[in-house]
C-alpha cells in the first residue's frame, strides 16, 4: 500500500453475508459483470470476484481500490462458518431481502456476531435488496426501522435492486470509502508500521515488537530474529 505520487492503491477484502436467496450473488454479478441473468455469464464461478474501482476521494486523493469480494454460503446450516469467512476482511456487506422480515432478523444476528468476533475492525454495510419487488407492488416494505437499526449499530444502510441496477455501484463506492477511512485510521494508530495489509503480520506485530523491529531494520541482521 505504498503511496504513489498521484494515486493510492488499496486492496480490500469484502465478504457478502446474508441468508440464502436474498440476492448476494446477484449483487455481486451486477457489480462486477453488470449482468443480472447469470445464464449469460461465461465466468466459471460467481462466488469470488475481483473488481478494481477508481475514484477521487473526498480529501482529493485519487484512489484505486482493488476489491476482493467473497460470497458466502447463506444456508442456515453453514451459519457457524461465518468467522472463517470474515476473518481478515476489511468489509462486510450484510444483505437482506426487503420482502422477507426473517432475512432482516438474520442480519441482526450477523451484526452481533461480527461485533463479538472482530469488533470494530470491520466496516459493515446493511443492504436491503430486491426493492424492485416493492416497485412492482409485490411486497410492502417500510425501510424506516431498518435504517434506524443500521444507524444504531453504526452501519450504512442501502436499498438496492440488483435486477434494476439501482444503488449497486454507490454501495460499493461508499463501502470503499469507509474502508479507506478505517485503513487510514489504523495507519495512524500504528504510525510506525506502515506495512499493514496483512492481518497476520499485524497480529504478530502486536505480539512481538522486537521481531518486527528487526524486520524493519531489514537485511542487515538476518539471524537475529531466531537467535532471539
Amino acid at each position: 500500500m505504498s503511496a504513489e505520487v498521484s494515486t493510492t492503491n488499496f486492496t480490500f477484502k469484502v465478504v457478502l453475508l446474508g441468508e440464502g436467496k436474498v440476492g448476494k450473488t446477484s449483487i455481486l454479478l451486477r457489480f462486477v459483470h453488470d449482468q443480472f441473468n447469470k445464464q449469460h455469464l461465461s465466468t466459471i464461478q460467481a462466488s469470488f470476484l475481483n473488481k478494481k474501482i477508481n475514484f477521487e476521494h473526498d480529501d482529493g486523493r485519487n484512489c484505486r481500490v482493488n476489491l476482493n469480494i467473497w460470497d458466502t454460503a447463506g444456508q442456515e446450516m453453514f451459519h457457524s462458518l461465518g468467522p472463517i469467512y470474515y476473518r481478515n476482511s476489511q468489509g462486510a456487506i450484510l444483505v437482506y431481502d426487503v420482502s422477507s422480515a426473517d432475512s432482516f432478523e438474520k442480519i441482526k444476528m450477523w451484526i452481533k456476531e461480527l461485533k463479538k468476533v472482530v469488533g470494530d475492525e470491520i466496516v459493515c454495510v446493511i443492504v436491503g435488496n430486491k426493492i424492485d419487488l416493492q416497485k412492482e407492488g409485490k411486497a410492502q416494505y417500510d425501510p424506516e426501522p431498518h435504517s434506524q437499526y443500521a444507524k444504531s449499530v453504526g452501519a450504512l444502510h442501502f436499498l438496492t435492486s440488483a435486477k434494476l441496477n439501482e444503488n449497486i455501484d454507490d454501495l460499493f463506492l461508499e463501502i470503499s470509502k469507509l474502508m479507506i477511512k478505517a485503513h487510514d485510521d489504523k495507519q495512524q494508530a500504528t504510525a510506525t508500521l506502515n506495512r499493514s495489509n496483512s492481518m497476520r503480520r499485524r497480529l504478530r506485530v502486536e505480539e512481538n515488537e522486537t521481531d518486527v523491529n528487526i524486520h524493519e531494520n531489514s537485511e542487515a541482521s538476518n539471524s537475529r530474529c531466531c537467535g532471539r
Partner: protein
Amino acid sequence: MYSLTKPRIESLKCRGSNCEYYGNAQWDLYCSKCYREKVMRERIVERRKVPAQQQQQLQPQPISHHSRSPEPHHSTVIINDDKKSKKRNILEVITFKKSPNTASKEKENKKSQQRPEVRQHQPIEANEVAQLETLKSLKISDRARRDFKTLLKALDKSIYQAYHSNASIDRISEIMQNGYVRFKDFMETKDLTFYDVPTEVKEQALEFFEKCIMTHHYKYLFSPQNTDDEEKDQAIHKRIRQLSWINAKHLVCSIDEVNAEVRDFVYSSITELVAMDSFATPHEKLECIVACCRNIFTLLKQTSGGPASADEFLPALIFVVLKANPIRLHSNLNYINRFSNATFIMSGESGYYFTNLCCAINFIENLTYESVSLTKEEFDDLMSNENHIHSAWESALMACESLNIISSNMKIMKDLNTRSHRFDDDIKLFKVDMKEFKDDILKKVSSLIKSKPLNIKPIKTPFKVRSFLSGTGNFNIRRSSSSDSSSALAAARQLKSNIVTATVTSDDKNLLLPNASMDETNFESLVQNLSDTLQMSTTAHGTSGMLSTSNSADLLSISPIFGKPSVFDSAITPDNDLIKGIRNINYDISYDIDSPENSLAEEIAQIRKYTNLVTQNTEPSSTATMTMSKSDLEEFDPLMMREQRSTNVLKEADNLTKSLIDDSPDAPSLLEQPLMPIKSNPLAEYKGLSSQSSRIQTISCETGQHSSNTQK
C-alpha cells in the same frame, strides 16, 4: 471409470525395462525373466524393495532399472517433477477407487510408511543441484541471484536453528512469514538488485524461494512431532469414514451422483484434493486445492446453467471432501496455513478456496443431525451402522463404475461400427468411382483411337507419306494441269484462301515458300522417280492395314480434289480442327502448290505468282521476325543443325524430305499459325511428339529461311 482403463492396460505388461512380455502378478507384474534378474540383483545389492508401483511410475529411463537405487529418483521427482508425482497420486486415487471399502485405511497406513521412507532418503545434494538449475533459469541478474541465495541461506539457517532449539511450530511459522515479507520487500526496494525485474519473475522468484525452503524442511515442518496434527488427521479421517453415508441430498447440494459426467468431475476434484498430500510446498498444495475447486465450479456450472454462487459451492465442496477423505488433511491445511506466503491464503482465488476448504472441514467436524436435517435417532443410527449404509455411495459408485465402463465400451463399439459402415460406404463409392473412371478412360481412349489414327500415321511414316505425297501430288497436278488448269488454279486459290484465314506465322510461310527455289534442281527428278514407286505402294497399302489405308485414302482423296474443289473442302474442313490432321492435309496441299512449280513451269508460274502474292501479303508483318528466326531456330533446335550438317549419303533423302516439305511451305505454314504464337516453342513440342515431326519442322524452317533470303 475414465482413469481406470489406462493404468490397467499398462499394468498388464511386464514392468521390466523395454520388456515386451506380459507381466504376472506372482512375479510382481514382471515377466519371468525380468523377475529372476530382479531378484538376483536384489540379493546382491540387498536393498529394500521399493513399492513396485512407484518404481514403475517414477523411473523414466528403465535401462538400468533393476540395479538403480530408487532414492535419488524419488527425491528428484518429488522436488522437481510435479507432474510425475501428481501422476503417482492419481494412481493412488485409482487404487482408492478400485476398492473404496477397504483401501482407504490400508492406504493411509501404507502411505505413512512409504512417504517418510521416501523422503528420508532425499539427498540434499540432488535437491540443491536441481534448485540451482531452477535458479539459473530465473531471468534475473547474477547479483540478484547472489542476493537471493544469501536471503535463502539466512532463512534456511534460522529455520534450522529454530527447529533444533525446539521452538514451537508457530515460532517457525513466524520466521517463515517474516522471511517471505523480507524477501518481498527486498525485491521491491529501490536500487537493489531485484527492483527492475518484471513482476512475473518476482512472483516466480518468491514461489521458488518458498519451494527451496519448504522442500528442504518439509520433513521437520510437515505435521511436526510437537503438535496434535496427526491426531487431528486421524480424527477427521475417522469422522469422514463415519459420515460416508452422507449423500448430496443431505447437503442440499445439486450434485447428481448418478450422472456420469458429473461423476467424472467429482472424481477429478477428488483426485486433485488427494494429490494435495504429495506435494512438498504449500504453494503446490494450494494449487491442488484451487484445481479441485475449479473442477467443482465447472461441474456446478454445467448442472445449474450459470456461474455457481457460494450457496451452491460450499455444499459441493463438502461433498467432495467427504467422498475424497484425503489423508493427513489437517496436517496439510496447517502446513499451508503456517508456511504458505500469507498473501496467497489471505486473498485471491487460492485464499478463497482455502478458506472454503477450511469451512468445509469445520462443517464436517461439527456436523450434527440438525445440519443434515435428520432426527437424532436417524443420525445416530446412520453413524453407528457405518458399514451397513456405508455402501450407499460406494455401491452406487461401483455400479456406476462398471456401468460406465460398459457404456464407454459401448460407445467405442458404436464408434467402431459407424466407422466400419462408413468404410463400407466409402468402398462402394470408390468402386463406383473406379467403374466410372474406367468407363471414362475407355471412352476417352476409344474416342482418341477414333480421332488419332489420322494424325499419327502420316507422321509415323513420313518417308512413305512424303513419297506418296510427291507421287500423288505430282500426278494429280500434272493431270489436273493438263486437263483443267483453270479449275486446279481455282481449287488452289480456294484452298489458299481457306488456309490463309486459318493459319501460320509469316515466318513459316517465308521459310517454307523459298524451299521451292532451292529444291528446284533435283526435285523434279526425285519426284518423278518416287511417284511411280509410291503409287505402287499406295495401291498395295490400300488394303494392307488401317494406318496405311487411312494414309492412302487421305492422300488419294486429294487427287480428285483439285478437280472438284467442293470435295476437297469437305475433306479438309473436318481435319482443320485437329492440328495433326491439318498437317496431313497440308502436306498434300502444299505439295500441290509447290510441285507444279518444279515440275510444270507454266502452271507453276501462275501458282507461284499466287504464292508470292501470299508471301508478300504476309511478309511485311514478318520481315523483322524472319531475320531473327533462323538463329532462333538453330538455337532451339539441335535437329536442325544436325540436319544442316547431314552427310552426302543422306543428301538425297534429305533433298527428298526437303522437297516434300518444301511443298508444304505455303499451306502448312499458313495452317500452322494458330499453333504458333511463339516460334520456338511449337517446334520443341513437335519434336517431343515424334522425331519425324520435328524433323519436318526443322527442315522446313531452315529451307524456308534460305528461300526467304533468296526471295529477298
